[in-house]
């Protein structure tokens, strides 16, 4: 029998062990191939331009890393499960190099198969992903997906590298192990030692303390040391999580067990005891899974929130559909042409002149803003009445007071204590105004919006009378807000506007085109985040599943014993489910908690409330994750049933 025959035989006999690794491989190939296809797809490339291409590239590299780590990890579990077989080959007289050759031939055959199948599936499903992507970025046209040779080449190269990596891994595994070690590998596992009382208690509390500190600091990062704060939060939370799994939980378990004085009960015998037994070995992977989950959840929730609030966010920056008057006479001509065209096409619109006073001033008190930007400000004073006429829903401030609007600094001003005083002044006059509220968004479109102070109409005229004379007349700007009455005509109106401008390069500041372009970038973002999130999720879920599968095999004998002692499958499964609740639940729960704090810390980026979209994203994540837990419990049930 040649080595090759042996390979074929062992593969046929081991199909049960292989399929796990095989699916892991196929799965990685499919995802990578889909990504590569999208990256090379002409319709994506054409529509994406520079920013999208870059995002795809970065995501591609990230994906490559995850796929690599995932395959290597799956391979190591796979190798461990087969250690007895590898030992047997050596026992019957195969040399180490022959065993290594055998494994590498197997690996190459397997990976080549997975690569072929993966690319096949990838070709089938990439269209679905392309459609999804196009839908997300708001493109409705017909999409032709072309078969991309470049994507195939890229995938093949990447996975050839991964095959090399796993082959090296196998070589090292075979070289490093002794016969004795190989036979014992399945029995390995540590035995819980009595923790050193003081040291463990200290580290256990330190773990919780570090996480708590990270959470606490995450709510107080908004100062010029932002970057260091972020590092500190990350560092203390990750270290805390590690200690939690490595020490705190073992310590708690030990206390519970000690308290039981041997009367553990069946449920604890099947959950607490085996968990303690493997805590040291599992601490690393549980920490990684928790941190990955937290990262993924934050990424998903953030991206989905951005996507979800695109319309609201754009509207708060561009309160009017169109705004003219900021660029003098040339702008007036465009405005005339634009409104004429709207009239001609019978698009009804609301036309409102808005007068703005541009004044200098300064903050009289220390505010968050003064810490970042200094105490001086230049404010646009706007009357509430004109805004109402333009269809913007603003509250009417009291006399002598003003509402503060500035979308660009809202994130730091929204937590400001009100009221605070600002002083407006020109060479001749000065006036103290009380800011009684900080409001969300702008009342004038970008790029004309700076700090905007909305005041009562009567007060506006008072201010105007006080500051404006012939010399200071230049301080008055006259804007014209154009708002399209029928929302469905916004696209047409925007097209007209762009036709008139006819300048591909200059930035345009109408609401609709901003909305569309934001939609495209957030759509792409949610797609990439979702894609990577799915990969993360499935990788972490599978790793937990693989690990639990191995544990189930290792504990099969215990289940057989328990069944012989007279416990039925139902009794045993109760304890096992408890264990799975811990194995899957704790990383998810801590990951969720981490991400909630991360999202809260990052919520300054959003003007709108993101509780809903973030909850939806987290909910979906938890649901898919739950699927893996159910699969695992199913596998255990099968194991327990067959153990007798």
């Amino acid at each position, binding site marked *: 029998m040649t080595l090759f025959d042996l390979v074929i035989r062992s593969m046929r006999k081991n199909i049960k062990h292989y399929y796990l690794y095989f699916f892991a491989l196929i799965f990685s190939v499919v995802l990578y191939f889909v990504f590569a296809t999208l990256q090379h797809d002409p319709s994506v490339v054409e529509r994406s331009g520079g920013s999208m291409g870059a995002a795809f590239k970065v995501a591609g590299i990230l994906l490559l890393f995850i796929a690599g780590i995932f395959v290597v990890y799956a391979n190591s579990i796979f190798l461990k499960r087969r250690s007895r077989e590898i030992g047997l080959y050596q026992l019957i007289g195969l040399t180490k190099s022959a065993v290594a050759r055998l494994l590498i031939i197997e690996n190459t055959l397997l990976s080549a198969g997975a690569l072929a199948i993966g690319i096949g599936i990838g070709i089938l499903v990439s269209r679905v992903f392309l459609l999804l992507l196009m839908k997300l970025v708001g493109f409705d046209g017909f999409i032709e997906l072309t078969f991309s040779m470049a994507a195939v080449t890229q995938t093949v190269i990447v996975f050839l590298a991964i095959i090399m990596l796993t082959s090296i891994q196998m070589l090292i595994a075979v070289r490093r192990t002794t016969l004795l070690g190989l036979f014992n590998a399945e029995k390995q596992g540590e*035995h819980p030692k009595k923790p050193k009382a003081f040291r463990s208690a200290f580290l256990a509390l330190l773990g919780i303390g570090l996480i708590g500190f990270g959470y606490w600091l995450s709510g107080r990062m908004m100062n010029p040391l932002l970057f260091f704060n972020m590092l500190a939060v990350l560092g203390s939370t990750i270290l805390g999580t590690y200690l939690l799994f490595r020490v705190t939980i073992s310590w708690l378990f030990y206390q519970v067990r000690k308290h039981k*004085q041997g009367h*553990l009960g069946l449920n604890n015998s099947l959950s607490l*005891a085996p968990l303690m*037994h493997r805590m040291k070995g599992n601490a690393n992977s549980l920490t990684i899974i928790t941190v990955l989950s937290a990262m993924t959840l934050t990424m998903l929730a953030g991206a989905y929130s951005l996507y979800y609030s695109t319309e609201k966010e754009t509207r708060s920056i561009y309160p009017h559909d169109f705004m003219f008057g900021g660029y003098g006479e040339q702008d007036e001509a465009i405005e005339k042409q634009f409104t004429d065209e709207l009239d001609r096409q019978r698009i009804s619109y609301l036309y409102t002149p808005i007068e703005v006073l541009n004044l200098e001033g300064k903050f009289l008190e220390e505010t968050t803003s003064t810490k970042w930007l200094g105490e001086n400000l230049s404010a646009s004073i706007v009357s509430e009445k004109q805004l109402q006429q333009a269809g913007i829903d603003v509250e009417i401030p009291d006399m002598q007071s003003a509402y503060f609007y500035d979308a660009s600094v809202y994130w730091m001003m929204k937590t400001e204590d009100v009221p605070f005083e600002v002083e407006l002044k020109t060479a001749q006059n000065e006036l103290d105004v009380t800011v009684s509220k900080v409001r969300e968004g702008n009342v004038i479109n970008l790029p004309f919006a700076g700090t905007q102070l909305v005041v009562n109409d009567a007060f506006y005229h008072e201010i105007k009378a006080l500051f404006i004379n012939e010399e200071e007349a230049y301080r008055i700007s006259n804007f014209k807000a154009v708002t399209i009455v029928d929302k469905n005509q916004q696209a047409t109106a925007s097209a007209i506007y762009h036709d008139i401008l006819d300048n591909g390069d200059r930035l345009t500041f109408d609401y609709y085109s901003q909305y569309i372009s934001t939609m495209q970038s957030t759509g792409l973002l949610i797609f990439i985040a979702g894609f990577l999130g799915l990969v993360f999720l499935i990788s972490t879920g599978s790793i937990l599943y693989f690990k639990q599968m191995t544990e189930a095999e290792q504990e099969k004998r215990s289940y057989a014993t*328990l*069944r012989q*002692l007279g416990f039925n499958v139902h009794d045993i499964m109760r304890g096992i489910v408890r264990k799975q609740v811990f194995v899957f639940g704790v990383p998810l729960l801590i990951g969720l908690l981490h991400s909630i704090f991360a999202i809260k810390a990052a919520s300054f980026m959003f003007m709108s409330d993101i509780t809903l979209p973030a909850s939806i994203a987290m909910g979906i994540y938890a649901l898919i994750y739950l699927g893996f837990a159910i699969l695992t419990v199913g596998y255990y049930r099968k194991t327990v049933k067959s153990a007798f």
Partner: protein
Amino acid sequence: MEQYKTVLHAQNVRKSFGTRGNVVQVLKGIDLRVMEGEFVGIMGASGAGKTTLLNVLATIDRTTEGSILIGESDISKMKDRELSAFRRDQLGFIFQDYNLLDTLTVKENILLPVSLGKMKKRVAEDQFNTIANLLGIKELADKYPHEISGGQKQRTSAARALINKPSMVFADEPTGALDSKSASSLLGTLEDVNKQRGVTIMMVTHDPVASSYCSRVVFLKDGNIYSELYRGDKTRQAFFQEILKVQGVLGGDSVDAL
């Protein structure tokens, strides 16, 4: 020794393995009655059906034909679920390779059969203390199986079999993995448990030394009961010689056991 009450009564027990066309009959109609307080050894050559008989009697496997009464219950008619509960409440098991759970301490392992919480904690604790003292493993309570010797593991396994005050204990080659010193020490203990606490024990073994500790030895040959020996008032030595004689007649692998 006077026995009054029947603990186990097997009638015409048959067991076949394999599918249609390729059936191997391992037990060919066994009738066996075990009285309360007996220590029964089952002997026979490899393939005689010792372990199959034990498994069938101990409710671990099902008969193809025949009935088995343990106490008042006919276990051949019970459903799987009832059988589990019956095993847990009424029977004790000692296995050749101990079958202790690696993740549990000695005490936790011993308390497993009562771990569904039907026994009060204080009662269980008392019971544990009594049995652990009896078997001399009290000091090992907090040790894990990997920290103790084979003999100690088998004592733990025996303690686990006794914790729920079973009507009967089944032991499958309990000394098979032990050195002779640990083996005789364990068998001595089992004998004590049998005599002092009146626990009924059925033990499968191929070792004549081990079976000389029993009060009765049943010899199987090709799925049938070949003969039976009662120890009566004989010394262990004399009983051992008798067993050897029967084994000699039975032939097979008896010699290499010595």
